[in-house]
């Protein structure tokens, strides 16, 4: 479990991270979401040991990593949002160089590099020059580089930025593979629907503070002003709409051709009561389910609606 406790980062009078608290369970993919300038990259750089925190703790298994940069470097794998590569260096040499920076013995490197390139699907590019790779391949290579010392925790800052849809899918597959390997991943992104699909938990940061944290469903349930319920009857549409309109928790009903949806402002028990009543009135139902909320809409509302998405 990684815990960030009351993390503060000030640049003179400006507070970039303001008492941030965060918990990332082991083996999870944690989506770190926030508008530009919210403090995501600053937090990630502190976690990677590239910035010094004004105050606060980054704890892993009870150990404050900020007080022990050497341990921090060994536990964390970091992939920045922007990075460059060296000219005149082949993929295998690039990996060998970073293996050397973690003092991995020469004899172990060949197998290690082969397995890492296999994970990110770059085995066929082993002898290619790094600067000749596509953007997506460079991103995957950088991910392989961040895994070279077998870190327990991965910090990925916007790993999908600038990638085409195909490269994004490939990156997503690699990340899913890493999750099955037991890695804990903290990932920041602006592409919310992708995060929602991939992450076990998300945290929304704004003005350096965590404004919401939990599973995607929890966050949507807690932050949605109203829930949208879809009902698909087998006939008797008019009766269904009439019944729904009579219910006090139903604020709005929209009738479609084959189904209808209604806005519901009540508890789980009250929703179950609605279903029970419809069945009790002998309306034949084919489907009754809660419509996926719009995460982007929630994000905009929570963070003040001033950010790019």
């Amino acid at each position: 479990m990684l815990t960030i406790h009351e993390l503060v980062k000030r640049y003179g009078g400006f507070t970039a991270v303001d008492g941030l608290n965060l918990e990332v369970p082991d083996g999870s993919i944690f989506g770190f979401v926030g508008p530009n300038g919210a403090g995501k990259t600053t937090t990630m750089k502190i976690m990677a040991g590239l910035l010094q925190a004004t105050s606060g703790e980054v704890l892993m298994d009870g150990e404050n990593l900020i007080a022990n940069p050497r341990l921090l470097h060994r536990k964390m794998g970091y992939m920045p949002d922007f990075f460059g590569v060296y000219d005149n260096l082949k993929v295998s040499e690039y990996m060998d160089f970073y293996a050397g920076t973690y003092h991995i013995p020469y004899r172990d490197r060949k197998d290690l590099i082969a397995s890492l390139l296999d994970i990110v699907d770059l085995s066929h590019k082993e002898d290619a020059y790094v600067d000749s790779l596509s953007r997506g391949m460079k991103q995957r290579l950088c991910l392989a580089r961040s895994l070279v010392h077998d870190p327990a925790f991965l910090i990925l800052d916007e790993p999908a930025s600038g990638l085409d849809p195909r490269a994004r899918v490939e990156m997503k597959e690699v990340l899913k593979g890493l999750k099955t390997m037991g890695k804990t991943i903290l990932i920041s992104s602006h592409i919310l629907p992708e995060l929602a699909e991939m992450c076990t938990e998300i945290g929304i940061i704004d003005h350096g503070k965590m404004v919401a944290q939990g599973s995607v469903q929890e966050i949507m349930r807690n932050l949605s002003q109203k829930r949208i319920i879809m009902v698909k009857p087998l006939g008797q549409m008019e009766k269904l709409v009439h019944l729904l309109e009579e219910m006090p928790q139903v604020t709005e009903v929209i009738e479609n051709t084959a189904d209808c949806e209604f806005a519901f402002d009540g508890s789980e028990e009250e929703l179950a009561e609605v279903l029970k009543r419809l069945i009790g009135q002998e309306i034949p139902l084919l489907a009754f389910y809660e419509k996926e909320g719009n995460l982007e809409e929630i994000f905009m509302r929570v963070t003040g609606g001033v950010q790019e998405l």
Partner: protein
Amino acid sequence: MMNPVLRREAITSLRNRRSFINLTLYVIAIVAVMALFIEMLLMNSRGLLFDPADVKYSYIALTGMQIAAIMLSTPALCAGSISGERERQTLDLLLVTDLTPLEIVMGKLMASLAMVLLMTLTSLPIYAICLYFGTLSVLDVLGMMVFFLVSACAVGSVSIYFSCKIQKTVISILCVYLLIGLACLGTLIWSVLGIAALQSNLAPNQAMPAVEPFSLALVANPALGFFSLIEHQLNMNILSNTLSTIFITAMGQKIMQHQYLFHLIFDVLVIVLFLFLATRAINPIRRTEKGKHFTEKKRFTKKEKKNVQQGQEDSSAQ
């Protein structure tokens, strides 16, 4: 295990065709200078009275050219080492690894100096001509090589420090050239003017003080260090007679006798100091109080520092 930074730089620079072209041009240039000097000596003697001892002038020209090449090329090779990583956006990737800042700085310095070492080694066969005519001993040549390498290390350390502190490579290089200019000319001008002022302020019967700060500045002068070593090796006077009449204090006389030795000691101190400063400059987080907190590398104004301290006090009070 070989420093990984040095290893990578060696791979990439050996693949770079420009390195070979530069080295070839350098060797051609020094061979041409040596050939020209020997030809001039033969012409002057008209083939009748050729004095092999005169080959020492070609040694002076050759070593002078080499020290100038080292002073000019080392900043160009070293001053972009860290700022180049920053410009290429690879520095953060290095700083998150297990390498210590000292390992990174040393790797960069060694990689840059490897080229200087190569330049020095490739010129060694040309010195064989001087050895053939009996002008010099092998120890003299080796002594000069040590002087070259220590000088290159000193200039390289200063260059790497500037590379850590200054964002732009070009500005780092210019700063180092400016510093070399100050060390060669600035120290000499300052010392001469200082001694002259000291003399003019003396009472009629007052003796010069034994210790004064002006002669001490000469220790930092690499050009004087070079000429001092040449004079020592060839047992001749190039500058020392003139300078001895200017730097008449006991300290000045002592420095003039063994300037190259004092300069080498000065270079070693410069290497230690600037490597230490570069290591501090490259470190994104610096420990000030063991296990408790760190100070920010970024320079704050007094007002900003006060704000940060105030904030830390507030949070600790909470």
